[in-house]
């Protein structure tokens, strides 16, 4: 069972539709006790990092989520804002993040259109079970004004260029996250979700 964390600003229905299409059992979780015994977690997201964390905190989801992912090591997939909140700090609202990964989230330079909206190329930098069966370079759907700048180069699993080169996929231990919307990236995105559903959280 895949538990998709539900909170007001999230686009969790799209993620549920995607897993349903793949015939993978999934449910929305919005209560702390549901997350406490979760086997596999997805944190989707749109909007702002601070609003996302506030929303999770107000719903008392942040502590069980952290415990389940950091202590119990269940496989975790963050999507879009679900990637950006993993780092130590975000320039968006000058706000601290979860600090599960070292690094910062920065704003794209203004000499191009921001937000970045559309299909951009992702180049995978190494193999990983969650990106198995995907082409080494492929196009995925992005919507972001901010991007991750990991403090540890080994955490970067995929790279993308939009004025700057940034980490579009990050992975460490049982945590993986995509800046792009895997649930809205057509066949390749669905394949990534399918890989995640089968992953044991090791790499």
């Amino acid at each position, binding site marked *: 069972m895949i538990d998709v964390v539900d909170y007001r600003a999230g686009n969790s*229905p799209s993620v549920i539709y995607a897993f349903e299409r793949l015939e993978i059992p999934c449910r929305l979780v919005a209560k702390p006790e549901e997350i406490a015994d979760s086997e596999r977690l997805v944190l989707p997201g*749109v909007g702002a990092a601070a609003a996302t964390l506030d929303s999770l905190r107000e719903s008392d989801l942040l502590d069980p989520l952290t415990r389940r992912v950091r202590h119990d090591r269940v496989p975790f997939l963050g999507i879009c804002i679900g990637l950006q909140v993993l780092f130590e700090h975000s320039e968006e609202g000058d706000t601290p993040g979860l600090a599960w990964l070292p690094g910062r989230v920065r704003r794209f330079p203004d000499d191009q259109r921001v937000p970045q909206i*559309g*299909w951009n190329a992702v180049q995978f930098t190494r193999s990983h079970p969650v990106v198995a069966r995907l082409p080494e370079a492929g196009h995925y759907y992005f*919507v972001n004004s901010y991007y991750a700048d990991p403090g540890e180069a080994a955490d970067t699993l995929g790279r993308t260029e939009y004025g700057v080169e940034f980490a579009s996929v990050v992975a460490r231990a049982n945590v993986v996250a995509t800046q792009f919307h895997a649930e809205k*990236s057509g066949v390749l995105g669905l394949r990534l979700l399918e890989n995640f559903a089968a992953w044991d959280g090791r790499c």
Partner: protein
Amino acid sequence: MLTKRLIACFDVIDGRVTKAQQFQDNIDVASAEDLAARLYDDQIDEIVFYDITASAEKRKIDLETVRRVAGHVFVPFTVGGGIRSVEDMFEVLKAGAEKISVDSMAVRNPEIIRDGAQAFGRQCIVLSTQVKRVGARAGIPSGYEVFIDGARAPTGLDAIEWVRRGEELGAGEIVVNSIDRDGTASGYDLEITRAVADAVNVPVIASGGAGGVDHIAAGLTDGGAQAAIISSILYSPRFDRNLGVRELKAGLAAVGVPLRPYLEN
């Protein structure tokens, strides 16, 4: 690099996709659900869905059809029509849309753009504009005026001033929909599309008039747009021959427009 996008547009009445000419004489094409499934399978980059009678009939958007379409579409999906409040937006997002398109309602109440962007993020709010060439005059320096309510009602707003205001209020994308070109297959209005693309720093979407690959290419290059809305060319019964996404992308790639590659199996 970030590629240009082909967006299929559905004008929906009672769950059916229809096709108009210059915002009139809608004819029936297919069920929204079936057409969405077919275009997703054909690797369209994005789908936008307008419930075109919701606003005039003063009713809420048809959420059941939104849900059914969302279940088939694993590319971005925008929904508009009859959105009056942040709560309306929330319902549409929970039904499976990623983005909300606001148009006539935003002219009546521009704060809805700000409220939506604050609640769901700028990327969620698409400002769609119906523009008509009226000639430069007092109050309309660009020569293009904004219309609302299915192109029936002039607003006295200058198109360029309105899109700038929309961007300031928090719109994450701007659709430039030419009333003069809608359904005519005579090409996008490149002049206003380019003027809008130069006036704002968010992505701009050309709409109204695409009848062939050359029109789409022109909108995405000379028009300065980041995305092109197409409909007739894909499915209008008024066309002798409709083109599929694969064929369109091959034609656009041949003239150097960067697009998400069509995946063969």
